[in-house]
Protein backbone atom coordinates (compact mmCIF):
# COMPACT_ATOMS: atom_id res chain seq x y z
CA UNK A 1 0.00 0.00 0.00
CA UNK A 2 2.84 2.42 0.79
CA UNK A 3 4.32 3.07 -2.62
CA UNK A 4 6.22 5.99 -4.07
CA UNK A 5 3.12 7.15 -5.93
CA UNK A 6 1.01 6.92 -2.79
CA UNK A 7 3.53 9.06 -0.90
CA UNK A 8 4.05 11.67 -3.59
CA UNK A 9 0.44 12.14 -4.67
CA UNK A 10 -0.84 15.69 -5.06
CA UNK A 11 -4.13 14.73 -3.49
CA UNK A 12 -3.53 12.83 -0.26
CA UNK A 13 -6.67 11.13 1.03
CA UNK A 14 -5.96 11.28 4.74
CA UNK A 15 -3.97 13.10 7.39
CA UNK A 16 -1.61 10.16 7.68
CA UNK A 17 -0.90 10.09 3.97
CA UNK A 18 -0.25 13.84 3.90
CA UNK A 19 2.19 13.57 6.80
CA UNK A 20 4.04 10.57 5.40
CA UNK A 21 4.19 12.26 2.01
CA UNK A 22 5.72 15.37 3.55
CA UNK A 23 8.28 13.30 5.46
CA UNK A 24 9.10 11.39 2.29
CA UNK A 25 9.72 14.63 0.38
CA UNK A 26 12.08 15.81 3.12
CA UNK A 27 13.86 12.47 2.89
CA UNK A 28 14.13 12.76 -0.89
CA UNK A 29 15.63 16.23 -0.65
CA UNK A 30 18.04 15.02 2.03
CA UNK A 31 18.96 12.02 -0.09
CA UNK A 32 19.86 14.17 -3.06
CA UNK A 33 22.59 15.78 -0.92
CA UNK A 34 25.51 13.36 -1.09
CA UNK A 35 27.51 14.77 1.84
CA UNK A 36 24.45 14.75 4.07
CA UNK A 37 23.98 11.09 3.21
CA UNK A 38 27.57 10.38 4.27
CA UNK A 39 26.72 11.99 7.60
CA UNK A 40 23.45 10.07 7.76
CA UNK A 41 25.18 6.72 7.23
CA UNK A 42 27.85 7.54 9.81
CA UNK A 43 25.14 8.22 12.40
CA UNK A 44 23.19 5.14 11.27
CA UNK A 45 26.37 3.07 11.66
CA UNK A 46 26.92 4.56 15.12
CA UNK A 47 23.43 3.53 16.15
CA UNK A 48 23.90 0.07 14.63
CA UNK A 49 27.21 -0.41 16.42
CA UNK A 50 25.71 0.73 19.73
CA UNK A 51 22.83 -1.72 19.41
CA UNK A 52 24.91 -4.70 18.29
CA UNK A 53 28.01 -3.94 20.41
CA UNK A 54 28.08 -7.36 22.16
CA UNK A 55 28.15 -9.14 18.77
CA UNK A 56 30.64 -6.79 17.12
CA UNK A 57 33.17 -6.42 19.92
CA UNK A 58 35.59 -9.38 19.96
CA UNK A 59 36.66 -8.88 23.60
CA UNK A 60 35.21 -7.69 26.87
CA UNK A 61 35.43 -3.87 27.07
CA UNK A 62 36.06 -3.76 30.80
CA UNK A 63 38.00 -6.86 31.76
CA UNK A 64 41.41 -6.92 30.08
CA UNK A 65 43.64 -9.79 29.07
CA UNK A 66 46.87 -10.94 30.71
CA UNK A 67 48.49 -7.87 32.25
CA UNK A 68 52.00 -9.29 31.69
CA UNK A 69 51.62 -10.16 28.02
CA UNK A 70 48.77 -8.14 26.51
CA UNK A 71 49.40 -4.56 27.63
CA UNK A 72 49.91 -1.79 25.06
CA UNK A 73 50.12 -4.07 22.02
CA UNK A 74 50.07 -2.19 18.72
CA UNK A 75 47.31 -2.61 16.16
CA UNK A 76 47.30 -6.13 14.69
CA UNK A 77 44.75 -8.63 13.35
CA UNK A 78 44.19 -9.89 16.91
CA UNK A 79 43.60 -6.39 18.26
CA UNK A 80 42.47 -4.13 15.43
CA UNK A 81 43.20 -0.97 17.38
CA UNK A 82 45.75 -2.40 19.79
CA UNK A 83 45.36 -2.69 23.56
CA UNK A 84 45.66 -0.18 26.38
CA UNK A 85 47.61 -0.16 29.63
CA UNK A 86 45.06 -2.43 31.29
CA UNK A 87 45.45 -4.97 28.45
CA UNK A 88 41.94 -4.20 27.21
CA UNK A 89 41.13 -4.40 23.50
CA UNK A 90 40.70 -0.79 22.32
CA UNK A 91 38.46 -1.76 19.39
CA UNK A 92 36.00 -3.42 21.79
CA UNK A 93 36.09 -0.39 24.05
CA UNK A 94 35.45 1.97 21.13
CA UNK A 95 32.52 -0.22 20.04
CA UNK A 96 30.97 -0.18 23.51
CA UNK A 97 31.83 3.51 23.81
CA UNK A 98 29.38 4.17 20.95
CA UNK A 99 26.61 3.39 23.47
CA UNK A 100 27.82 6.04 25.90
CA UNK A 101 28.28 8.55 23.11
CA UNK A 102 24.75 7.93 21.85
CA UNK A 103 23.42 8.18 25.40
CA UNK A 104 25.11 11.55 25.90
CA UNK A 105 23.94 12.87 22.55
CA UNK A 106 20.37 11.61 22.88
CA UNK A 107 19.82 12.74 26.46
CA UNK A 108 21.31 16.19 25.91
CA UNK A 109 19.09 16.62 22.84
CA UNK A 110 16.01 15.44 24.75
CA UNK A 111 16.67 17.71 27.75
CA UNK A 112 18.21 20.86 26.24
CA UNK A 113 16.12 21.25 23.07
CA UNK A 114 12.70 21.52 24.77
CA UNK A 115 14.03 23.92 27.43
CA UNK A 116 15.62 26.16 24.79
CA UNK A 117 12.53 26.04 22.56
CA UNK A 118 10.12 26.77 25.40
CA UNK A 119 12.13 29.69 26.79
CA UNK A 120 12.95 31.17 23.38
CA UNK A 121 9.49 30.95 21.81
CA UNK A 122 7.77 32.22 24.96
CA UNK A 123 10.13 35.19 25.23
CA UNK A 124 9.86 35.98 21.53
CA UNK A 125 6.10 35.58 21.30
CA UNK A 126 5.10 37.66 24.31
CA UNK A 127 7.85 40.27 24.12
CA UNK A 128 7.84 43.01 26.75
CA UNK A 129 8.87 42.15 30.29
CA UNK A 130 8.47 38.39 29.76
CA UNK A 131 11.12 38.68 27.06
CA UNK A 132 13.37 40.80 29.28
CA UNK A 133 13.20 38.42 32.25
CA UNK A 134 13.67 35.21 30.25
CA UNK A 135 16.45 36.60 28.10
CA UNK A 136 18.40 38.01 31.05
CA UNK A 137 18.26 34.56 32.68
CA UNK A 138 19.53 33.15 29.39
CA UNK A 139 22.28 35.76 29.34
CA UNK A 140 23.37 34.76 32.85
CA UNK A 141 23.71 31.16 31.71
CA UNK A 142 25.53 32.26 28.57
CA UNK A 143 27.95 34.43 30.54
CA UNK A 144 29.45 31.43 32.36
CA UNK A 145 32.12 29.51 30.51
CA UNK A 146 30.25 26.36 29.57
CA UNK A 147 32.70 23.83 30.95
CA UNK A 148 33.01 25.69 34.27
CA UNK A 149 29.24 25.76 34.74
CA UNK A 150 28.97 22.10 33.76
CA UNK A 151 31.78 21.44 36.23
CA UNK A 152 29.85 23.17 39.02
CA UNK A 153 26.68 21.24 38.22
CA UNK A 154 28.52 17.96 37.86
CA UNK A 155 30.26 18.42 41.19
CA UNK A 156 26.98 19.39 42.86
CA UNK A 157 25.17 16.37 41.41
CA UNK A 158 28.06 13.99 41.96
CA UNK A 159 30.34 12.28 39.45
CA UNK A 160 28.96 9.91 36.82
CA UNK A 161 28.01 9.98 33.18
CA UNK A 162 24.29 10.64 33.84
CA UNK A 163 25.03 13.68 35.97
CA UNK A 164 27.53 14.92 33.40
CA UNK A 165 24.76 14.67 30.79
CA UNK A 166 22.36 16.67 32.95
CA UNK A 167 25.07 19.26 33.57
CA UNK A 168 25.80 19.58 29.85
CA UNK A 169 22.10 19.82 29.03
CA UNK A 170 21.59 22.57 31.59
CA UNK A 171 24.44 24.56 30.11
CA UNK A 172 23.66 24.02 26.44
CA UNK A 173 20.07 25.30 26.18
CA UNK A 174 20.78 29.09 26.10
CA UNK A 175 21.95 29.19 22.44
CA UNK A 176 18.79 27.31 21.42
CA UNK A 177 16.66 29.78 23.36
CA UNK A 178 18.33 32.69 21.57
CA UNK A 179 17.87 31.01 18.20
CA UNK A 180 14.22 30.14 18.87
CA UNK A 181 13.55 33.69 20.06
CA UNK A 182 15.06 35.19 16.91
CA UNK A 183 12.96 32.88 14.72
CA UNK A 184 9.85 33.64 16.76
CA UNK A 185 10.32 37.38 16.31
CA UNK A 186 10.10 36.98 12.53
CA UNK A 187 7.18 34.55 12.74
CA UNK A 188 5.19 36.51 15.33
CA UNK A 189 3.98 39.25 13.00
CA UNK A 190 3.16 37.08 9.98
CA UNK A 191 -0.38 36.89 8.66
CA UNK A 192 -0.79 33.20 9.46
CA UNK A 193 -0.14 33.92 13.12
CA UNK A 194 -2.51 36.91 12.95
CA UNK A 195 -5.07 34.66 11.30
CA UNK A 196 -5.01 32.06 14.06
CA UNK A 197 -5.04 34.84 16.66
CA UNK A 198 -8.20 36.15 15.01
CA UNK A 199 -9.73 32.75 15.44
CA UNK A 200 -9.44 33.10 19.16
CA UNK A 201 -6.55 30.70 19.73
CA UNK A 202 -4.90 30.92 23.14
CA UNK A 203 -1.24 31.87 23.38
CA UNK A 204 -0.05 28.37 24.41
CA UNK A 205 -1.88 26.91 21.42
CA UNK A 206 -0.29 29.43 19.05
CA UNK A 207 3.19 28.93 20.50
CA UNK A 208 3.01 25.14 20.58
CA UNK A 209 1.04 24.50 17.40
CA UNK A 210 2.18 27.31 15.14
CA UNK A 211 5.44 28.87 16.27
CA UNK A 212 7.36 25.84 17.58
CA UNK A 213 7.00 23.75 14.38
CA UNK A 214 8.66 26.54 12.42
CA UNK A 215 11.47 27.06 14.94
CA UNK A 216 12.03 23.35 15.33
CA UNK A 217 13.94 22.80 12.10
CA UNK A 218 16.56 25.48 12.73
CA UNK A 219 16.94 24.36 16.35
CA UNK A 220 17.33 20.72 15.26
CA UNK A 221 20.01 21.80 12.80
CA UNK A 222 21.79 23.77 15.51
CA UNK A 223 21.58 20.83 17.96
CA UNK A 224 23.02 18.49 15.34
CA UNK A 225 25.88 20.87 14.65
CA UNK A 226 26.50 21.19 18.42
CA UNK A 227 26.70 17.44 18.93
CA UNK A 228 30.43 17.41 18.27
CA UNK A 229 30.93 20.01 21.00
CA UNK A 230 28.67 18.09 23.36
CA UNK A 231 30.67 14.89 22.90
CA UNK A 232 33.85 16.85 23.58
CA UNK A 233 32.40 18.53 26.69
CA UNK A 234 31.40 15.10 27.98
CA UNK A 235 34.95 13.94 27.27
CA UNK A 236 36.30 17.01 29.07
CA UNK A 237 34.20 16.28 32.16
CA UNK A 238 35.36 12.68 32.01
CA UNK A 239 38.95 13.89 31.81
CA UNK A 240 38.41 15.97 34.95
CA UNK A 241 36.98 12.95 36.74
CA UNK A 242 33.40 14.22 36.81
CA UNK A 243 32.02 12.41 33.77
CA UNK A 244 32.30 8.75 32.89
CA UNK A 245 33.99 6.82 35.68
CA UNK A 246 36.62 4.18 34.99
CA UNK A 247 36.37 1.53 33.74
CA UNK A 248 33.52 2.82 31.55
CA UNK A 249 34.68 2.88 27.93
CA UNK A 250 33.89 6.54 27.29
CA UNK A 251 35.83 7.94 24.34
CA UNK A 252 36.93 11.16 26.05
CA UNK A 253 38.04 9.32 29.18
CA UNK A 254 39.95 6.86 26.96
CA UNK A 255 41.85 9.73 25.35
CA UNK A 256 42.61 11.14 28.79
CA UNK A 257 43.96 7.75 29.88
CA UNK A 258 46.11 7.46 26.75
CA UNK A 259 47.56 10.92 27.21
CA UNK A 260 50.26 9.58 29.57
CA UNK A 261 51.97 7.51 26.90
CA UNK A 262 50.95 9.26 23.71
CA UNK A 263 54.57 9.44 22.45
CA UNK A 264 55.39 5.74 22.76
CA UNK A 265 51.96 4.13 22.32
CA UNK A 266 50.14 6.52 20.03
CA UNK A 267 47.19 4.25 19.28
CA UNK A 268 45.78 4.35 22.82
CA UNK A 269 44.72 7.99 22.52
CA UNK A 270 44.42 8.11 18.72
CA UNK A 271 41.82 5.38 18.17
CA UNK A 272 39.06 6.90 20.34
CA UNK A 273 40.11 10.28 18.93
CA UNK A 274 39.42 9.03 15.42
CA UNK A 275 36.04 7.72 16.59
CA UNK A 276 35.12 11.14 18.06
CA UNK A 277 36.33 12.81 14.87
CA UNK A 278 34.24 10.58 12.59
CA UNK A 279 31.09 10.89 14.67
CA UNK A 280 31.48 14.67 14.99
CA UNK A 281 31.99 14.90 11.23
CA UNK A 282 28.92 12.74 10.69
CA UNK A 283 26.75 14.99 12.85
CA UNK A 284 28.08 18.12 11.15
CA UNK A 285 27.43 16.79 7.64
CA UNK A 286 23.96 15.60 8.61
CA UNK A 287 23.18 18.93 10.30
CA UNK A 288 24.24 20.84 7.22
CA UNK A 289 22.06 18.67 4.99
CA UNK A 290 19.11 18.93 7.36
CA UNK A 291 19.34 22.70 7.22
CA UNK A 292 18.64 22.58 3.50
CA UNK A 293 16.05 19.80 3.66
CA UNK A 294 14.03 21.23 6.56
CA UNK A 295 13.99 24.88 5.54
CA UNK A 296 10.28 25.68 5.11
CA UNK A 297 11.05 28.81 3.12
CA UNK A 298 13.48 27.25 0.71
CA UNK A 299 11.12 24.51 -0.49
CA UNK A 300 8.66 25.01 -3.29
Amino acid at each position, binding site marked *: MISREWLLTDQPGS*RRQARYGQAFRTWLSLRSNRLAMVGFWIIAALIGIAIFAPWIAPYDPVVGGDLRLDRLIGPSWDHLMGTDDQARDIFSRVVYGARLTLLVVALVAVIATPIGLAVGTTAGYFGGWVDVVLMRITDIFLAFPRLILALAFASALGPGIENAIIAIAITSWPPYARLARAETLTIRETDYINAIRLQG*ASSPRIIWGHVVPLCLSSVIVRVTLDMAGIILTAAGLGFLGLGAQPPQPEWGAMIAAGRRFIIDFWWVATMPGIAIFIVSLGFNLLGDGLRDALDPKGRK
Partner: protein
Amino acid sequence: MNLIEISNLDVTFGSFANTVAAVRDVSFNVAAGEAFGIVGESGSGKSTVLRAICGLAPVTGGTIRIDGQPLKTPRDAGFYRRVQMVFQDPYASLHPRHTVDRVLAEPLAIHGFANAETRIEQALADVGLGHGFRFRYPHQLSGGQRQRVAIARALILEPKILLLDEPTSALDASIQAEVLNLLDRLRSERGLTYILVSHDLAVVAHMCERLLVMQHGRTVEELTRAELQGRRAQQPYTRALLVASQGYVGQTPTLEKA
Protein backbone atom coordinates in the same frame (compact mmCIF):
# COMPACT_ATOMS: atom_id res chain seq x y z
CA MET B 1 -29.77 49.76 12.14
CA ASN B 2 -26.05 49.97 11.71
CA LEU B 3 -24.15 46.76 12.41
CA ILE B 4 -20.76 48.45 12.61
CA GLU B 5 -20.35 51.98 13.86
CA ILE B 6 -16.94 53.57 13.86
CA SER B 7 -16.60 57.07 15.19
CA ASN B 8 -13.52 59.30 15.36
CA LEU B 9 -11.14 56.33 15.17
CA ASP B 10 -7.49 57.11 15.85
CA VAL B 11 -4.69 54.57 15.53
CA THR B 12 -1.22 55.65 16.60
CA PHE B 13 1.81 53.36 16.50
CA GLY B 14 5.00 53.79 18.47
CA SER B 15 5.58 55.71 21.65
CA PHE B 16 7.13 58.95 22.91
CA ALA B 17 9.04 60.84 20.25
CA ASN B 18 8.52 58.65 17.21
CA THR B 19 4.82 58.10 16.85
CA VAL B 20 3.06 57.46 13.58
CA ALA B 21 -0.58 58.43 13.35
CA ALA B 22 -1.76 55.81 10.87
CA VAL B 23 -5.46 56.64 11.15
CA ARG B 24 -6.85 59.99 12.24
CA ASP B 25 -10.45 60.77 13.04
CA VAL B 26 -12.12 58.27 10.73
CA SER B 27 -15.85 57.64 11.09
CA PHE B 28 -18.25 55.49 9.13
CA ASN B 29 -21.21 53.18 9.59
CA VAL B 30 -21.96 49.91 7.88
CA ALA B 31 -25.46 48.46 7.78
CA ALA B 32 -26.13 44.73 8.18
CA GLY B 33 -25.79 42.90 4.87
CA GLU B 34 -24.02 45.78 3.22
CA ALA B 35 -20.67 45.73 1.44
CA PHE B 36 -18.61 48.76 2.34
CA GLY B 37 -15.42 49.69 0.55
CA ILE B 38 -12.39 51.59 1.75
CA VAL B 39 -10.17 52.94 -1.02
CA GLY B 40 -6.86 54.71 -0.90
CA GLU B 41 -3.24 54.61 -1.93
CA SER B 42 -0.56 52.61 -0.11
CA GLY B 43 0.00 53.98 3.38
CA SER B 44 -3.35 55.72 3.53
CA GLY B 45 -4.30 53.73 6.64
CA LYS B 46 -7.07 51.71 5.03
CA SER B 47 -5.76 48.31 6.14
CA THR B 48 -5.03 49.71 9.58
CA VAL B 49 -8.72 50.46 10.02
CA LEU B 50 -9.48 46.75 9.50
CA ARG B 51 -6.68 45.72 11.83
CA ALA B 52 -7.97 48.11 14.49
CA ILE B 53 -11.43 46.56 14.24
CA CYS B 54 -10.11 43.06 14.86
CA GLY B 55 -7.64 44.07 17.54
CA LEU B 56 -4.38 43.70 15.61
CA ALA B 57 -3.70 47.45 15.74
CA PRO B 58 -4.04 49.61 18.86
CA VAL B 59 -7.10 51.85 19.03
CA THR B 60 -5.83 55.08 20.58
CA GLY B 61 -8.95 57.16 20.20
CA GLY B 62 -12.59 56.96 19.18
CA THR B 63 -14.91 53.99 19.45
CA ILE B 64 -15.78 50.91 17.45
CA ARG B 65 -19.23 49.46 18.08
CA ILE B 66 -20.66 46.25 16.72
CA ASP B 67 -24.38 45.75 17.24
CA GLY B 68 -24.26 48.89 19.38
CA GLN B 69 -21.80 47.28 21.81
CA PRO B 70 -18.33 48.83 22.19
CA LEU B 71 -15.60 46.24 21.61
CA LYS B 72 -13.62 44.87 24.51
CA THR B 73 -9.84 44.82 24.45
CA PRO B 74 -8.62 42.12 24.13
CA ARG B 75 -11.44 40.83 21.96
CA ASP B 76 -13.41 37.90 23.36
CA ALA B 77 -14.24 34.57 21.75
CA GLY B 78 -17.71 35.80 20.80
CA PHE B 79 -16.16 38.58 18.71
CA TYR B 80 -14.07 36.12 16.70
CA ARG B 81 -17.17 34.10 15.92
CA ARG B 82 -18.90 37.15 14.52
CA VAL B 83 -16.00 38.89 12.77
CA GLN B 84 -13.37 37.23 10.60
CA MET B 85 -10.74 38.55 8.25
CA VAL B 86 -9.22 37.54 4.91
CA PHE B 87 -5.67 38.76 4.42
CA GLN B 88 -4.06 40.32 1.41
CA ASP B 89 -1.29 37.88 0.59
CA PRO B 90 -2.45 34.26 0.36
CA TYR B 91 1.19 33.19 0.25
CA ALA B 92 1.75 34.62 3.74
CA SER B 93 -1.58 33.91 5.41
CA LEU B 94 -1.43 30.09 5.49
CA HIS B 95 0.91 28.28 7.86
CA PRO B 96 3.55 26.57 5.69
CA ARG B 97 3.55 23.40 7.81
CA HIS B 98 -0.21 22.89 8.19
CA THR B 99 -2.45 21.03 5.78
CA VAL B 100 -5.69 22.61 4.58
CA ASP B 101 -7.44 20.13 6.86
CA ARG B 102 -5.56 21.37 9.92
CA VAL B 103 -6.13 25.02 8.97
CA LEU B 104 -9.89 24.42 8.86
CA ALA B 105 -10.09 22.06 11.83
CA GLU B 106 -8.29 24.33 14.28
CA PRO B 107 -10.90 27.12 14.59
CA LEU B 108 -13.58 24.44 15.01
CA ALA B 109 -11.56 22.86 17.83
CA ILE B 110 -10.96 26.22 19.52
CA HIS B 111 -14.64 27.11 19.58
CA GLY B 112 -15.84 23.59 20.29
CA PHE B 113 -17.96 23.10 17.18
CA ALA B 114 -19.50 19.67 16.75
CA ASN B 115 -19.24 17.49 13.61
CA ALA B 116 -16.00 19.04 12.38
CA GLU B 117 -15.74 16.41 9.65
CA THR B 118 -18.84 17.51 7.72
CA ARG B 119 -18.18 21.20 8.35
CA ILE B 120 -14.72 20.97 6.81
CA GLU B 121 -16.02 19.14 3.74
CA GLN B 122 -18.83 21.69 3.43
CA ALA B 123 -16.50 24.68 3.82
CA LEU B 124 -14.25 23.35 1.05
CA ALA B 125 -17.22 22.73 -1.21
CA ASP B 126 -18.54 26.24 -0.53
CA VAL B 127 -15.39 27.89 -1.82
CA GLY B 128 -15.22 25.60 -4.84
CA LEU B 129 -12.44 23.29 -3.68
CA GLY B 130 -13.03 19.56 -3.86
CA HIS B 131 -12.14 16.82 -1.42
CA GLY B 132 -8.80 16.37 -3.18
CA PHE B 133 -7.51 19.60 -1.66
CA ARG B 134 -8.23 18.73 1.94
CA PHE B 135 -4.92 17.16 2.88
CA ARG B 136 -2.65 19.34 0.80
CA TYR B 137 -0.01 21.67 2.15
CA PRO B 138 -0.02 25.33 1.06
CA HIS B 139 3.00 24.78 -1.17
CA GLN B 140 0.89 22.36 -3.19
CA LEU B 141 -1.71 25.05 -3.93
CA SER B 142 -1.83 27.96 -6.38
CA GLY B 143 -2.40 31.54 -5.23
CA GLY B 144 -6.11 31.47 -6.07
CA GLN B 145 -6.57 28.12 -4.32
CA ARG B 146 -4.77 29.46 -1.26
CA GLN B 147 -7.03 32.47 -1.12
CA ARG B 148 -10.05 30.16 -1.36
CA VAL B 149 -8.68 28.23 1.61
CA ALA B 150 -8.24 31.51 3.48
CA ILE B 151 -11.85 32.43 2.72
CA ALA B 152 -13.01 28.99 3.84
CA ARG B 153 -11.04 29.42 7.07
CA ALA B 154 -12.67 32.80 7.69
CA LEU B 155 -16.15 31.44 7.00
CA ILE B 156 -15.92 28.17 8.91
CA LEU B 157 -16.87 29.87 12.19
CA GLU B 158 -19.98 31.22 10.42
CA PRO B 159 -19.25 34.89 11.11
CA LYS B 160 -21.65 37.69 10.21
CA ILE B 161 -18.95 40.19 9.29
CA LEU B 162 -16.05 39.57 6.94
CA LEU B 163 -13.15 42.00 6.79
CA LEU B 164 -11.41 41.75 3.41
CA ASP B 165 -7.94 43.26 3.22
CA GLU B 166 -7.20 43.55 -0.51
CA PRO B 167 -8.24 39.95 -1.02
CA THR B 168 -7.42 39.89 -4.71
CA SER B 169 -4.47 42.22 -5.14
CA ALA B 170 -1.92 39.38 -5.00
CA LEU B 171 -3.76 37.37 -7.66
CA ASP B 172 -3.69 37.68 -11.42
CA ALA B 173 -6.61 39.15 -13.30
CA SER B 174 -8.59 36.02 -14.23
CA ILE B 175 -8.26 34.58 -10.72
CA GLN B 176 -9.24 37.95 -9.25
CA ALA B 177 -12.59 37.79 -11.01
CA GLU B 178 -13.17 34.22 -9.77
CA VAL B 179 -12.45 35.13 -6.18
CA LEU B 180 -14.58 38.29 -6.35
CA ASN B 181 -17.50 36.34 -7.78
CA LEU B 182 -17.05 33.76 -5.04
CA LEU B 183 -17.16 36.49 -2.38
CA ASP B 184 -20.22 38.03 -4.02
CA ARG B 185 -22.03 34.68 -4.07
CA LEU B 186 -21.15 33.90 -0.46
CA ARG B 187 -22.42 37.29 0.66
CA SER B 188 -25.79 36.87 -0.99
CA GLU B 189 -26.12 33.25 0.18
CA ARG B 190 -25.27 33.94 3.80
CA GLY B 191 -26.28 37.58 4.26
CA LEU B 192 -22.75 38.57 5.21
CA THR B 193 -21.57 42.09 5.85
CA TYR B 194 -18.30 43.02 4.14
CA ILE B 195 -15.76 45.72 4.70
CA LEU B 196 -13.51 45.56 1.67
CA VAL B 197 -10.23 47.41 1.54
CA SER B 198 -8.67 47.93 -1.87
CA HIS B 199 -6.59 50.30 -3.91
CA ASP B 200 -8.53 49.20 -6.98
CA LEU B 201 -11.61 51.32 -7.65
CA ALA B 202 -12.93 48.82 -10.17
CA VAL B 203 -12.97 46.05 -7.54
CA VAL B 204 -14.71 48.29 -5.02
CA ALA B 205 -17.23 49.54 -7.59
CA HIS B 206 -18.03 45.91 -8.46
CA MET B 207 -18.40 44.72 -4.87
CA CYS B 208 -19.58 47.59 -2.70
CA GLU B 209 -22.69 49.76 -2.37
CA ARG B 210 -20.84 52.51 -0.55
CA LEU B 211 -17.21 53.44 -0.15
CA LEU B 212 -14.87 55.64 1.81
CA VAL B 213 -11.87 57.30 0.22
CA MET B 214 -8.86 57.72 2.50
CA GLN B 215 -5.57 59.56 2.17
CA HIS B 216 -2.80 60.05 4.74
CA GLY B 217 -4.90 58.37 7.44
CA ARG B 218 -7.83 60.75 7.02
CA THR B 219 -11.20 60.50 5.37
CA VAL B 220 -11.37 62.25 2.02
CA GLU B 221 -15.00 61.55 1.23
CA GLU B 222 -17.76 58.97 1.30
CA LEU B 223 -19.44 57.97 -1.95
CA THR B 224 -22.20 55.64 -3.08
CA ARG B 225 -21.71 53.26 -5.94
CA ALA B 226 -23.99 55.37 -8.15
CA GLU B 227 -21.92 58.46 -7.45
CA LEU B 228 -18.75 56.55 -8.22
CA GLN B 229 -20.09 55.18 -11.48
CA GLY B 230 -21.47 58.61 -12.44
CA ARG B 231 -18.04 60.06 -11.60
CA ARG B 232 -19.68 62.58 -9.30
CA ALA B 233 -16.81 62.91 -6.86
CA GLN B 234 -16.49 66.14 -4.89
CA GLN B 235 -12.85 66.00 -3.85
CA PRO B 236 -9.93 66.49 -6.25
CA TYR B 237 -8.12 63.47 -4.76
CA THR B 238 -11.05 61.18 -5.57
CA ARG B 239 -11.20 62.55 -9.09
CA ALA B 240 -7.49 61.86 -9.47
CA LEU B 241 -8.10 58.29 -8.33
CA LEU B 242 -10.92 57.95 -10.86
CA VAL B 243 -8.65 59.12 -13.65
CA ALA B 244 -5.92 56.78 -12.48
CA SER B 245 -8.36 53.83 -12.46
CA GLN B 246 -8.95 54.27 -16.20
CA GLY B 247 -5.43 53.08 -16.65
CA TYR B 248 -2.78 54.79 -18.68
CA VAL B 249 -4.37 56.89 -21.35
CA GLY B 250 -1.72 58.36 -23.54
CA GLN B 251 -2.17 61.86 -24.79
CA THR B 252 -3.00 61.71 -28.44
CA PRO B 253 -0.09 63.38 -30.14
CA THR B 254 -1.28 66.40 -32.02
CA LEU B 255 0.49 67.27 -35.16
CA GLU B 256 1.86 70.72 -34.86
CA LYS B 257 1.99 72.69 -38.01
CA ALA B 258 5.55 73.19 -38.91
